[in-house]
């Protein structure tokens, strides 16, 4: 029953909904052409007829083109839908690829370096490394050094569950925390940097941080995670660490805030104050009289912002000096290189999408347009011939045909990426788990390249049929007809 409903929606309601803006735009364009025609007629009344007539002819041409699109509305609609769907697929692929590109491309200046255990995966470093690594970074020569207050951050991954029984662990009751100093949320988290957020979102993050600082039991979650665990801001809850990791540690946390909705890549994430983790480990030692097995290796990643490649090299040298960081030894790399090595596993998929799938879709799109336009040109050969008889120049005939394809292509591409940009992003991006990214957002550039892609496909697809319409030999067309 459900599948029937879905099929019905996809096959009938969906296309109709997608077509409405197309029809609306066509109508609006025709209205504009008519109004423009009227306006240009009154505006050019004082011009010499030679120029005036040329100006007036433009909206008239536009009306002829628009009427021709309307003439076989089914065919135009099908071309539109085909281009729409294909641009949509390309938009999705492109959004993911640009996002991954940005994540893996080394930005020239001001990048984040990642310090981890040199040999062990997962990386586990003692808490004393926080201070020591920070000091190394802060003691680099001027121009290279990091600001301990703004440029460093550590992550400890803490897996917890709302249910103490590990056998009942599920998506609905699991919370994986990044345990960290809340200050890092303002300066060091990708896409949460204060200057990248809207003023309202930036303020929301500052309040989150303030709340986590006054109440070290405060946690910040995504709205999505709140929904899956069915809690709300202000709720207190008890979470139990996975026995395989922080055995016998539990936290009494209070939800003090959520991530701004624009920070979709943090859907599913949660932040726990590092201080609370430390205090809990200390409390364990006081209570049991022995150290917790994790208490000397709970720092997983150390992030530091460096101004340039030289600074990173200088830091690498000082970390390598004998006797400094020996248990365990550490390595430093660009954050983006770390992401790249994660993504290596997906290299073939990504290359396939980029170099096979996208060109294939573009080619199909061009063929669809070429097919529709050549059928309509073949049907209308006598009409093209009549236009020429009346004195229309070949290029004017060419424009009439190209214009038709161009309008359908640009509208399909433009409406597609516009709807996708606003629609998909408002609904939280594209779900496409790859490496540790789960969500992708459609970049704002799609608003211009959607129409451009549609236009290119339209021109590529219609240039041959339009050229044949342009080259119609009048005497031949009528010799055959008569």
């Amino acid at each position: 029953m459900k599948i029937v409903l879905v099929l019905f929606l996809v096959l009938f309601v969906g296309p109709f909904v997608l077509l409405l803006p197309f029809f609306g735009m066509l109508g609006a364009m025709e209205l504009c052409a008519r109004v423009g025609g009227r306006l240009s007629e009154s505006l050019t009344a004082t011009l010499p007829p030679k120029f005036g007539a040329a100006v007036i002819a433009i909206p008239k041409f536009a009306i002829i083109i628009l009427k021709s699109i309307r003439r076989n509305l089914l065919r135009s609609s099908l071309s539109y839908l085909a281009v729409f769907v294909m641009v949509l697929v390309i938009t999705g692929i492109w959004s993911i690829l640009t996002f991954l590109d940005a994540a893996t491309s080394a930005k020239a200046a001001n990048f984040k370096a990642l310090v981890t255990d040199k040999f062990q995966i997962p990386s586990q470093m003692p808490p004393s490394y926080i201070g020591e690594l920070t000091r190394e970074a802060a003691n680099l020569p001027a121009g290279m050094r990091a600001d301990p207050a703004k440029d460093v951050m550590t992550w400890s991954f803490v897996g917890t569950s709302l249910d103490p029984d590990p056998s009942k662990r599920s998506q609905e009751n699991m919370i994986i925390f990044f345990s960290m100093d809340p200050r890092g949320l303002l300066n060091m988290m990708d896409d949460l940097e204060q200057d990248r957020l809207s003023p309202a979102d930036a303020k929301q993050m500052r309040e989150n941080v303030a709340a986590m600082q006054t109440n070290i039991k405060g946690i910040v979650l995504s709205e999505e995670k709140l929904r899956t665990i069915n809690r709300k801001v202000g709720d207190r809850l008890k979470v139990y660490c996975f026995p395989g990791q922080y055995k016998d540690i539990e936290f009494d946390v209070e939800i003090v805030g959520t991530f701004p909705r624009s920070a979709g890549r943090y859907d599913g994430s949660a932040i726990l104050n590092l201080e609370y983790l430390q205090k809990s480990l200390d409390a364990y030692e006081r209570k049991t009289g022995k150290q917790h097995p994790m208490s000397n290796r709970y720092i997983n990643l150390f992030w530091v912002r460096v101004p340039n490649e030289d600074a990173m090299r200088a830091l690498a040298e000082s970390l390598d000096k004998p006797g400094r960081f020996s248990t365990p030894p550490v390595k430093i790399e660009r954050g983006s290189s770390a992401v790249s090595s994660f993504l290596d596993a997906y290299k073939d998929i990504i290359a396939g999408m980029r170099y096979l799938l996208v060109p294939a879709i573009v080619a199909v799109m061009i063929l669809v347009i070429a097919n529709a336009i050549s059928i309509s040109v073949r049907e209308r050969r006598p009409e093209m011939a009549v236009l020429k008889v009346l004195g229309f120049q070949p290029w004017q005939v060419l424009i009439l045909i190209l214009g038709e394809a161009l309008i359908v292509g640009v509208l399909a591409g433009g409406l597609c990426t516009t709807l996708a940009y606003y629609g998909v992003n408002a609904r939280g991006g594209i779900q496409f788990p790859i490496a540790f990214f789960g969500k992708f957002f459609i970049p704002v550039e799609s608003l211009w390249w959607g129409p451009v892609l549609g236009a290119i496909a339209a021109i590529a697809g219609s240039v041959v049929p339009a050229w044949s319409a342009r080259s119609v030999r009048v005497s031949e067309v009528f010799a055959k007809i008569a």
Partner: protein
Amino acid sequence: MTNKPIVQVRDLYKSFTRGAEKIEVLTDLNVDVAEGEFLALMGPSGSGKTTLLNLIAGLDQPTSGKILVGDQEISAMTESQLARWRTRHVGFVFQFYHLLPVLTAYENVELPLLLMPLTAAERKRQVLNALELVQLSNRLSHRPGMLSGGQQQRVGIARAIVTDPTLIVADEPTGDLDSKSANEILSLLDLLRESLNKTIIMVTHDPHAAERAQRLLHLEKGRLVMDSTQGEPRPTVAFPR
């Protein structure tokens, strides 16, 4: 009609090549058409009537020979010069009307005027005049599909005369019409000649239609075999060169 002829065809040859085959369609043709003349062109199918009409109307170029319309040698023009020349000097009427189906009667008639340097007011006046003349002032916003064959052909005629051309050419304009509509169309052509002094060249298979013309040319295998004025046959051999 004693003036210089408006159309002069001199030593006209036209052949088409289809693959390796060369088809001689018009052979050594000489015709003069006077201003204000209504001329009918008859002959069996394949005799070259349409070909001759197309050449006179500047839709095609002769293989050899000269065609002058007014004082312009159209056989020496380039394709784009011809296109511009056609807009101003030739009005076409087709057997199958060939109106653009998406445009209204008004817009169809307006079409050739889009290529001319006219003000909006002039253009509008000319379109309305032309439609008035063919008595379709009450069908301005009808599309061709909503009109009868005879009405469509009248729109076709309005489109042909709207630019006030020197020459009106019609290729079997009544070929697709019943006799009543055909008569209306022929009366309309008569009217154009009488009141506006238009020169009309009409290809037809219909002897009744041909009767309406003042002069009849008979073509056979690409040669002129008969030239009769107002019912007086005149063998073309005696036609002065």
